[in-house]
Protein backbone atom coordinates (compact mmCIF):
# COMPACT_ATOMS: atom_id res chain seq x y z
CA UNK A 1 0.00 0.00 0.00
CA UNK A 2 2.81 2.33 1.01
CA UNK A 3 4.64 1.51 -2.20
CA UNK A 4 1.51 2.07 -4.27
CA UNK A 5 1.17 5.60 -2.92
CA UNK A 6 4.84 6.27 -3.59
CA UNK A 7 4.51 4.84 -7.10
CA UNK A 8 1.56 7.13 -7.82
CA UNK A 9 3.54 10.13 -6.59
CA UNK A 10 6.55 9.15 -8.72
CA UNK A 11 4.24 8.72 -11.70
CA UNK A 12 2.71 12.14 -11.11
CA UNK A 13 6.11 13.82 -10.89
CA UNK A 14 7.52 12.04 -13.94
CA UNK A 15 4.44 12.97 -15.99
CA UNK A 16 5.57 16.58 -16.41
CA UNK A 17 8.56 15.31 -18.42
CA UNK A 18 6.58 12.91 -20.62
CA UNK A 19 4.69 14.14 -23.67
CA UNK A 20 2.73 11.02 -24.55
CA UNK A 21 -0.23 10.41 -22.21
CA UNK A 22 -0.34 6.68 -23.05
CA UNK A 23 3.25 6.27 -21.81
CA UNK A 24 2.21 7.78 -18.48
CA UNK A 25 -0.81 5.47 -18.22
CA UNK A 26 1.25 2.37 -19.03
CA UNK A 27 4.10 3.21 -16.67
CA UNK A 28 5.39 0.17 -14.73
CA UNK A 29 8.02 -0.30 -12.06
CA UNK A 30 10.49 -1.63 -14.61
CA UNK A 31 9.80 1.10 -17.21
CA UNK A 32 13.05 2.61 -18.43
CA UNK A 33 13.00 6.40 -18.09
CA UNK A 34 14.59 6.96 -21.51
CA UNK A 35 13.61 3.94 -23.60
CA UNK A 36 10.05 3.29 -22.37
CA UNK A 37 8.94 6.68 -21.10
CA UNK A 38 10.76 8.71 -23.77
CA UNK A 39 12.37 11.05 -21.25
CA UNK A 40 15.38 12.51 -23.02
CA UNK A 41 18.66 12.30 -21.11
CA UNK A 42 18.82 16.12 -21.13
CA UNK A 43 15.69 16.10 -18.93
CA UNK A 44 16.99 13.65 -16.32
CA UNK A 45 18.38 16.58 -14.34
CA UNK A 46 14.89 18.15 -14.43
CA UNK A 47 13.46 14.89 -13.09
CA UNK A 48 16.02 14.91 -10.27
CA UNK A 49 15.24 18.55 -9.43
CA UNK A 50 11.48 17.83 -9.49
CA UNK A 51 11.93 15.10 -6.87
CA UNK A 52 14.31 17.19 -4.77
CA UNK A 53 11.84 20.07 -4.70
CA UNK A 54 8.77 17.89 -4.09
CA UNK A 55 10.25 16.00 -1.17
CA UNK A 56 12.81 18.52 0.15
CA UNK A 57 15.66 16.05 -0.37
CA UNK A 58 19.09 16.03 -2.01
CA UNK A 59 19.82 13.36 -4.59
CA UNK A 60 23.56 12.84 -5.03
CA UNK A 61 25.31 12.49 -8.41
CA UNK A 62 26.03 8.84 -7.59
CA UNK A 63 22.32 8.22 -7.08
CA UNK A 64 21.48 10.00 -10.35
CA UNK A 65 23.71 7.57 -12.25
CA UNK A 66 21.61 4.68 -10.88
CA UNK A 67 18.32 6.18 -12.09
CA UNK A 68 17.44 4.03 -15.08
CA UNK A 69 13.95 2.80 -14.20
CA UNK A 70 10.92 3.91 -12.17
CA UNK A 71 11.86 1.34 -9.55
CA UNK A 72 15.35 2.85 -9.25
CA UNK A 73 13.72 6.19 -8.38
CA UNK A 74 11.49 4.49 -5.81
CA UNK A 75 14.52 2.81 -4.23
CA UNK A 76 16.41 6.11 -4.07
CA UNK A 77 13.41 7.82 -2.44
CA UNK A 78 13.03 4.98 0.06
CA UNK A 79 16.75 5.12 0.90
CA UNK A 80 16.27 8.82 1.63
CA UNK A 81 13.35 7.95 3.93
CA UNK A 82 10.83 9.82 1.82
CA UNK A 83 7.25 9.49 3.02
CA UNK A 84 4.09 10.17 1.03
Amino acid at each position, binding site marked *: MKDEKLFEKVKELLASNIDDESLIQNMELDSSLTKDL*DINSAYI*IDVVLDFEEAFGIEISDDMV*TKMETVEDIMNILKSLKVTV
Partner: protein
Amino acid sequence: MIGNDIVTFTKQRSKERQRKYQDRILTKEEQLLFKNFDNKVKIGLAWSIKEAIYKYFARAQDLLFIPKNWNIVELFSVSSTKNVNDFNGKFVKQGFENLSHFATRIQSSNRQIFGKTLIFENFIYTVVTDERSKLDKIYWGVLEIDSVLYRDQSKAVRCFAKEQFSNIFSVANIQTLQFRSDEKSVPNLYLNNIQLNCFFSFSHHTHFVAYAWI
Protein backbone atom coordinates in the same frame (compact mmCIF):
# COMPACT_ATOMS: atom_id res chain seq x y z
CA MET B 1 36.74 7.65 -30.74
CA ILE B 2 33.95 10.16 -31.12
CA GLY B 3 30.90 11.48 -29.28
CA ASN B 4 28.05 13.72 -30.35
CA ASP B 5 24.88 15.18 -28.90
CA ILE B 6 21.92 17.22 -30.00
CA VAL B 7 19.73 19.29 -27.66
CA THR B 8 16.62 21.20 -28.70
CA PHE B 9 15.24 24.33 -27.08
CA THR B 10 11.83 22.89 -26.25
CA LYS B 11 11.93 22.79 -22.46
CA GLN B 12 10.67 25.86 -20.60
CA ARG B 13 12.45 26.40 -17.29
CA SER B 14 12.04 29.11 -14.68
CA LYS B 15 15.10 31.24 -13.83
CA GLU B 16 15.42 29.41 -10.52
CA ARG B 17 15.27 26.03 -12.29
CA GLN B 18 17.89 27.16 -14.85
CA ARG B 19 20.18 28.17 -11.99
CA LYS B 20 19.74 24.83 -10.20
CA TYR B 21 20.26 22.94 -13.48
CA GLN B 22 23.51 24.70 -14.27
CA ASP B 23 24.74 24.24 -10.68
CA ARG B 24 24.16 20.53 -11.17
CA ILE B 25 26.17 20.14 -14.37
CA LEU B 26 28.76 22.95 -14.34
CA THR B 27 31.56 23.64 -11.89
CA LYS B 28 32.06 27.21 -10.63
CA GLU B 29 34.98 27.64 -13.07
CA GLU B 30 32.86 26.40 -15.97
CA GLN B 31 30.05 28.76 -15.04
CA LEU B 32 32.48 31.65 -15.53
CA LEU B 33 33.26 30.38 -19.04
CA PHE B 34 29.55 30.31 -19.86
CA LYS B 35 28.60 33.58 -18.20
CA ASN B 36 28.02 35.53 -21.42
CA PHE B 37 25.42 33.14 -22.82
CA ASP B 38 21.76 33.64 -22.11
CA ASN B 39 20.34 30.98 -19.81
CA LYS B 40 18.48 29.02 -22.47
CA VAL B 41 21.57 28.62 -24.65
CA LYS B 42 23.87 28.13 -21.66
CA ILE B 43 22.07 25.01 -20.42
CA GLY B 44 21.69 23.45 -23.89
CA LEU B 45 25.30 24.19 -24.77
CA ALA B 46 26.68 22.83 -21.50
CA TRP B 47 24.53 19.72 -21.65
CA SER B 48 25.35 18.91 -25.29
CA ILE B 49 29.10 19.16 -24.61
CA LYS B 50 28.95 17.03 -21.45
CA GLU B 51 26.71 14.38 -23.02
CA ALA B 52 28.93 14.21 -26.13
CA ILE B 53 31.96 13.61 -23.86
CA TYR B 54 30.07 10.89 -22.01
CA LYS B 55 29.30 9.18 -25.31
CA TYR B 56 32.94 9.53 -26.35
CA PHE B 57 34.11 7.62 -23.25
CA ALA B 58 31.14 5.28 -22.79
CA ARG B 59 31.88 3.39 -26.00
CA ALA B 60 35.17 2.14 -24.59
CA GLN B 61 34.38 1.67 -20.92
CA ASP B 62 31.61 1.35 -18.38
CA LEU B 63 31.17 4.84 -17.12
CA LEU B 64 28.86 6.75 -14.86
CA PHE B 65 27.48 10.00 -16.19
CA ILE B 66 28.59 12.61 -13.68
CA PRO B 67 28.73 15.89 -15.65
CA LYS B 68 31.15 17.66 -13.31
CA ASN B 69 33.77 14.93 -13.83
CA TRP B 70 34.65 16.44 -17.20
CA ASN B 71 35.79 20.03 -17.06
CA ILE B 72 35.25 22.39 -19.96
CA VAL B 73 38.40 24.51 -19.77
CA GLU B 74 38.18 26.38 -23.06
CA LEU B 75 35.19 27.72 -24.99
CA PHE B 76 35.57 30.26 -27.75
CA SER B 77 33.67 31.46 -30.76
CA VAL B 78 34.96 30.81 -34.29
CA SER B 79 33.24 33.15 -36.72
CA SER B 80 32.49 32.51 -40.36
CA THR B 81 30.45 34.13 -43.05
CA LYS B 82 28.25 31.04 -43.28
CA ASN B 83 25.18 31.19 -41.07
CA VAL B 84 24.00 27.81 -39.77
CA ASN B 85 20.50 29.04 -39.09
CA ASP B 86 19.46 28.18 -42.64
CA PHE B 87 18.69 24.58 -41.59
CA ASN B 88 15.93 23.26 -43.80
CA GLY B 89 15.34 19.78 -42.42
CA LYS B 90 18.63 18.11 -43.31
CA PHE B 91 22.31 18.91 -42.88
CA VAL B 92 25.05 16.58 -44.16
CA LYS B 93 28.65 17.78 -43.80
CA GLN B 94 32.28 16.90 -43.41
CA GLY B 95 34.09 19.12 -40.92
CA PHE B 96 33.08 22.57 -39.78
CA GLU B 97 34.93 24.76 -42.24
CA ASN B 98 33.05 27.94 -43.12
CA LEU B 99 30.52 27.41 -40.33
CA SER B 100 30.35 29.72 -37.32
CA HIS B 101 30.74 27.56 -34.23
CA PHE B 102 32.12 27.30 -30.71
CA ALA B 103 35.35 25.41 -30.16
CA THR B 104 35.92 23.74 -26.83
CA ARG B 105 38.59 21.86 -24.89
CA ILE B 106 37.66 19.49 -22.10
CA GLN B 107 39.92 18.10 -19.41
CA SER B 108 39.19 14.70 -17.94
CA SER B 109 41.80 13.37 -15.50
CA ASN B 110 44.89 13.28 -17.70
CA ARG B 111 43.01 13.33 -21.02
CA GLN B 112 42.14 16.26 -23.27
CA ILE B 113 39.12 16.14 -25.55
CA PHE B 114 38.26 18.71 -28.21
CA GLY B 115 34.87 19.66 -29.50
CA LYS B 116 32.91 21.87 -31.84
CA THR B 117 29.40 23.09 -31.23
CA LEU B 118 26.94 24.64 -33.63
CA ILE B 119 24.04 26.70 -32.35
CA PHE B 120 21.03 26.55 -34.66
CA GLU B 121 17.74 28.34 -34.18
CA ASN B 122 16.00 25.26 -32.73
CA PHE B 123 18.84 23.12 -31.46
CA ILE B 124 22.47 22.83 -30.41
CA TYR B 125 24.78 20.19 -31.86
CA THR B 126 28.17 19.13 -30.47
CA VAL B 127 30.84 16.73 -31.69
CA VAL B 128 33.92 15.78 -29.63
CA THR B 129 37.03 13.76 -30.33
CA ASP B 130 40.59 13.39 -29.05
CA GLU B 131 42.49 15.69 -31.45
CA ARG B 132 41.50 19.16 -32.56
CA SER B 133 42.73 18.49 -36.09
CA LYS B 134 40.42 15.46 -36.44
CA LEU B 135 37.32 17.61 -36.00
CA ASP B 136 37.51 18.92 -39.54
CA LYS B 137 37.56 15.38 -40.95
CA ILE B 138 34.43 14.25 -39.16
CA TYR B 139 31.38 13.34 -41.22
CA TRP B 140 28.20 14.46 -39.49
CA GLY B 141 24.56 15.03 -40.22
CA VAL B 142 21.37 16.29 -38.64
CA LEU B 143 17.88 15.35 -39.81
CA GLU B 144 14.47 16.63 -38.75
CA ILE B 145 11.84 13.90 -38.34
CA ASP B 146 8.09 13.86 -37.64
CA SER B 147 8.04 11.73 -34.50
CA VAL B 148 9.39 12.44 -31.02
CA LEU B 149 9.14 8.82 -29.84
CA TYR B 150 12.35 7.09 -28.78
CA ARG B 151 11.84 4.05 -31.04
CA ASP B 152 11.17 6.26 -34.08
CA GLN B 153 14.18 8.48 -33.35
CA SER B 154 16.35 5.41 -32.95
CA LYS B 155 15.15 3.92 -36.23
CA ALA B 156 15.41 7.23 -38.08
CA VAL B 157 18.99 7.95 -37.01
CA ARG B 158 20.08 4.48 -38.12
CA CYS B 159 18.41 4.85 -41.54
CA PHE B 160 19.88 8.33 -41.98
CA ALA B 161 23.38 7.21 -40.99
CA LYS B 162 23.18 4.05 -43.09
CA GLU B 163 22.32 6.15 -46.14
CA GLN B 164 25.30 8.45 -45.53
CA PHE B 165 27.74 5.69 -44.51
CA SER B 166 26.92 3.70 -47.65
CA ASN B 167 28.11 6.72 -49.66
CA ILE B 168 31.27 7.09 -47.55
CA PHE B 169 32.09 3.37 -47.87
CA SER B 170 30.90 3.24 -51.52
CA VAL B 171 28.56 0.38 -50.67
CA ALA B 172 26.42 -0.54 -53.67
CA ASN B 173 23.78 -2.50 -51.75
CA ILE B 174 22.69 -0.57 -48.67
CA GLN B 175 21.08 -3.75 -47.21
CA THR B 176 24.56 -5.22 -46.65
CA LEU B 177 25.24 -2.45 -44.15
CA GLN B 178 23.73 -3.00 -40.69
CA PHE B 179 23.86 -1.56 -37.21
CA ARG B 180 23.79 -4.04 -34.34
CA SER B 181 23.90 -3.06 -30.69
CA ASP B 182 26.18 -4.87 -28.27
CA GLU B 183 25.33 -5.88 -24.69
CA LYS B 184 25.95 -2.30 -23.51
CA SER B 185 23.49 -1.02 -26.18
CA VAL B 186 26.38 0.53 -28.10
CA PRO B 187 25.71 0.28 -31.85
CA ASN B 188 28.35 -1.25 -34.12
CA LEU B 189 28.47 -1.18 -37.90
CA TYR B 190 28.57 -4.38 -39.96
CA LEU B 191 29.22 -4.84 -43.67
CA ASN B 192 28.21 -8.26 -45.00
CA ASN B 193 27.99 -9.46 -41.38
CA ILE B 194 31.58 -8.43 -40.64
CA GLN B 195 32.03 -5.78 -37.97
CA LEU B 196 33.79 -2.66 -39.26
CA ASN B 197 36.38 -1.00 -37.08
CA CYS B 198 35.05 2.55 -37.19
CA PHE B 199 33.92 5.14 -34.71
CA PHE B 200 30.55 6.82 -34.84
CA SER B 201 28.02 8.30 -32.47
CA PHE B 202 24.24 8.76 -32.64
CA SER B 203 22.04 11.26 -30.85
CA HIS B 204 18.44 12.40 -30.91
CA HIS B 205 16.20 14.88 -29.19
CA THR B 206 12.57 15.67 -29.93
CA HIS B 207 12.25 16.09 -33.74
CA PHE B 208 15.96 15.92 -34.51
CA VAL B 209 18.38 13.04 -34.99
CA ALA B 210 22.13 13.25 -35.68
CA TYR B 211 25.19 11.12 -36.37
CA ALA B 212 28.93 11.76 -36.39
CA TRP B 213 31.52 9.45 -37.92
CA ILE B 214 35.29 9.45 -38.09
